């Protein structure tokens, strides 16, 4: 079972997690010292992250290794297990953590929010708990790690708790996370089966061994979907996400959006593919539908945001939606026994997890640097930063293109795989699903295209054009450590984009144990250069060739152009169309750029607009775009709770005779009951 290297890797893993915990506690040594945190703790954390990623990478595809800790409940000590699935997500965690930690080492500033030592404590506990979530092999360990993750991230989100809206965001976040956690817990309650084994039934090993009835497995799946969906930001449980991400310090937002959301994906995969055996087709279809709605919702809303971090948060919702679409497809395929296609869909999901982790953390870190340079999150006050902060800008461009799903960057590959998976659905033996497929595919395509729109808005409004405010003139580019972090993530984006075959070879190690098959056989057999999931005749994509040919053509054109026409260039002011007064405020604002979408998708938004009349001395325009779900779901729920509270208040009107009457009636009623 445990080969030498195998035995090593989980021990290493545990060691590294403990290292994170130690670093966390080390923060308490000098909680006020900011140099200590930024020069010692965070770099150390980054190093650990790197090692973690390496260890997990080695463990990828090895035989699953288990371990039991002397902690936990009496009959239920913490079980840890390192299999390919968790290894992959650990790679993701370690890789992003390395970049983000090193970035935060440079990012950390004096006198921002909580004490630096305390913040590092919470940050590293956050990392450690995420790692434990991925390693846990019994319900209790999983839940403990899961909730600790929520808790530590909550404290990070509210680290600048003086602002009420940040407190509100944290509150919303923790509340939804808690409700989700309870439903996950109930899901485990079902999965543990009839529990003749007592507490020992909570181990995943036991859960795997049990076959549930259709009803109970569906119930378990539903609860899991609810719980993990709440963490992932699946509709309609997404409202915390656009609140919490802007509230958190940027590295934390990067960590949450890049990695924490993926732990939810990990959870749903773990439950639906590992613990539950026989998915039903309608699970897949419902997940697919939910995912589509989420994706469209996310991208449509992110297009109209004017706060750069909210924009990214909504785009995270979109990506989560796409991930769930993939999961839904995989489930559907598997329920019809088409493991090959299920493998294709699942591969696209895993691939997209990696991609999103890379580019979304990159983008959030970019917003962090911009925030520090300009002290504003509002897109309306930015612009032209490419001249002031070229590093951030160009690295950000990589992230933006990747996030827009453009070749040859990584975002495109997973999108491509997903669409391929769609193209092969007609094989399904179920008419209605086949009818649904085109619509679904169309929605996915639309989402991808809109993502491009969003990313153009994001990048162009922040970095291009002319500065919309004077103070932007003395914005500083990111420091060295920050650059290292950003470059690391950008490099990941490019690498993931350029060598899909290699990545898929690794992903196969994950899909094979889960589904019994993988797509590498077809994908790689053709050629390491060409990615062909089914067979090269049907579909293929070669990013390297792609990039090379573009590069060659660009180079050739440049050469020719400069060779044959002496490239004279005159630098002058921009052409003002005969309109002399051109101020920076005349550029499109973020709102302006989103305006076409606001028109096209009007019914999707809840908008209040204040339009200036033509006689205004100081014309004023304001638009507020709200989330329908807030008014459809959350406020009613709150009102219902309020109503319930008002009702129960009648129990406590202060009159003692009434109280006595209560107990009297209770007594009489009970006596009646037992006589029956």
């Amino acid at each position, binding site marked *: 079972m445990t080969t030498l290297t195998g035995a090593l890797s989980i021990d290493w893993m545990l060691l590294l997690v403990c290292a994170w915990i130690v670093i966390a506690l080390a923060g308490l040594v000098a909680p006020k010292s900011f140099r200590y945190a930024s020069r010692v703790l965070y770099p150390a954390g980054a190093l650990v992250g790197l090692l973690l990623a390496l260890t997990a990478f080695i463990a990828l595809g090895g035989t699953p290794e288990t371990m039991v800790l002397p902690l936990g409940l009496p009959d239920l000590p913490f079980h840890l297990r390192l299999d390919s699935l968790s290894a992959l997500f650990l790679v993701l965690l370690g890789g992003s953590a390395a970049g983000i930690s090193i970035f935060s080492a440079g990012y950390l500033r004096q006198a921002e929010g909580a004490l630096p030592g305390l913040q590092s404590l919470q940050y590293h506990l956050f990392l450690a708990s995420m790692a434990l979530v991925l390693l846990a092999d019994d319900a209790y360990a999983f839940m403990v790690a899961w909730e600790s993750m929520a808790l530590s991230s909550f404290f990070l989100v509210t680290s600048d708790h003086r602002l009420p809206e940040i407190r509100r965001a944290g509150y919303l976040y923790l509340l939804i996370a808690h409700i989700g956690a309870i439903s996950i817990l109930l899901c485990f309650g079902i999965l543990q089966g009839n529990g003749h084994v007592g507490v020992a039934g909570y181990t995943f090993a036991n859960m795997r061994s049990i076959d549930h009835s259709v009803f109970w497995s569906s119930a378990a799946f539903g609860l899991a979907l609810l719980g993990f969906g709440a963490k992932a930001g699946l509709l309609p449980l997404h409202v915390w996400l656009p609140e919490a991400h802007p509230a958190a310090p940027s590295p934390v937002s990067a960590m949450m959006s890049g990695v924490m959301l993926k732990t939810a994906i990990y959870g749903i995969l773990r439950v639906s593919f590992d613990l539950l055996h026989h998915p039903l087709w309608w699970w897949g279809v419902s997940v697919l539908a939910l995912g589509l709605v989420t994706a469209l919702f996310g991208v449509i809303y992110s297009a109209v945001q004017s706060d750069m971090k909210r924009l990214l948060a909504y785009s995270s919702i979109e990506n989560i939606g796409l991930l769930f679409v993939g999961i839904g497809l995989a489930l559907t395929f598997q329920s019809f026994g088409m493991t090959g296609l299920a493998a294709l869909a699942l591969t696209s999901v895993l691939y997209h997890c990696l991609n999103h982790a890379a580019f979304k953390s990159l983008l959030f870190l970019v917003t962090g640097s911009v925030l520090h340079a300009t002290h504003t999150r509002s897109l309306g006050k930015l612009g032209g930063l490419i001249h002031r902060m070229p590093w951030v800008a160009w690295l950000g461009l990589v992230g933006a293109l990747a996030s827009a799903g453009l070749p040859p960057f990584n975002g495109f590959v997973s999108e491509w795989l997903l669409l391929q998976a769609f193209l092969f659905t007609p094989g399904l033996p179920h008419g209605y699903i086949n009818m649904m497929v085109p619509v679904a*595919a169309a929605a996915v395509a639309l989402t991808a295209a809109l993502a491009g729109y969003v990313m153009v808005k994001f990048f162009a409004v922040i970095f291009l054009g002319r500065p919309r405010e004077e103070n932007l003139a003395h914005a500083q580019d990111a420091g060295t450590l920050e650059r290292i972090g950003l470059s690391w993530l950008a490099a990941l984006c490019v690498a993931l984009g350029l060598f899909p075959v290699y990545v898929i070879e690794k992903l196969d190690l994950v899909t094979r144990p889960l589904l019994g098959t993988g797509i590498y056989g077809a994908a790689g057999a053709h050629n390491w250069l060409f990615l062909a999931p089914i067979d090269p005749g049907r579909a293929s994509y070669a990013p390297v060739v792609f990039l090379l040919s573009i590069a060659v053509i660009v180079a050739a054109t440049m050469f020719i152009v400069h060779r044959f026409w002496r490239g004279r260039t005159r630098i002058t002011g921009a052409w003002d169309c005969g309109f002399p007064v051109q101020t920076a405020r005349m550029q499109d604002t973020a709102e302006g750029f989103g305006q*076409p979408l606001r028109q096209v998708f009007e019914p999707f938004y809840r908008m209040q607009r204040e339009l200036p009349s033509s006689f205004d001395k100081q014309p004023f325009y304001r638009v507020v775009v709200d989330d329908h779900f807030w008014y459809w779901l959350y406020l009613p729920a709150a009102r219902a709770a309020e109503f319930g509270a008002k009702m129960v208040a009648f129990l406590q009107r202060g009159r003692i005779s009434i109280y006595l009457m209560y107990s009297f009636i209770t007594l009489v009623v009970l006596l009646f009951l037992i006589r029956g």
Partner: protein
Amino acid sequence: MSSAPALVLQFLELILALLAAPLLTGWVNQCRAWLGNRSAPPLTQFYRQLAKLFEKEVVLADNASSLFRAAPYVIFACMALASMIVPTLSTDLPFAPAADAIALVGIFALARVFAALAGMDIGTSFGTMGARREMLIGFLAEPALLMVFFTASLISHSTSLSTIVETLGQREFAIYPSLAFAGVAFTMVSLAENARIPVDNPTTHLELTMIHEAMILEYSGRHLALIEWAASLKLYAYSCLGLALFFPWGIPETTGPLSMLVALSSLVLKLAIGGFLLALIETLSAKLRIFRAPEFLGTAFMLAVLAMLVHQLLETAT
């Protein structure tokens, strides 16, 4: 990889595309002039234009970033690559596997994004307006195009263009209602994508209506030349694509000089007809208000999806 002659052929196709594209644009303009009872410019007008532009000096706004300078080259490269991938003379292209239909859409998107970014780089209100409108059209046209490809690839069980064209071309003639839908959708998309009436007007510089032109307003000299050339390449690529998808006959997969001649002639013929039809459409229809454009493209999108549905309904049985 494929054989040496195939590589040569690939190169030939590129050269052909580079040369033929301006001609196609010229031809369309000629037809439009004729149809509009104007005296037509010569067929080679576009070459002269390019030459002149290359000669001119570049007038660069003082706050232009390096992205602004790089964009034309990238766009041009994208279009060149696209026209390399689309099977025109032969389906046995060594570069074809590099990018299938989906990737092709990706290429167009990449070009569009760079154009839009460049448009917003200077920070004049025109550039940003153009970029915004371009993206607006793009985000509707792109999925529609994708859906068209999907229909085709559902028929041919493949997304690689060569395979699609082969299957479509080699099969005995049969009526595919789905393809009909897809064809209409494709036409609408390509009108929009190539900045043609009724969505955009390549010849206007009227502030309120222009889209593509507004976006590239700041470009001049060789940059402008590259962009114009890229635009014509795009038109060429789209036309070839449409022909390859919906009138695939005459594209051989063997590479012999004779079959080349056949292919070339048939291509020229088809392009001529296509160009004329395009001119016809442009002349007969009026430019839409900018906010009608989404509806136009939405229709295209719907048609494309409908095409897939029709395929599911009627043709999966066969």
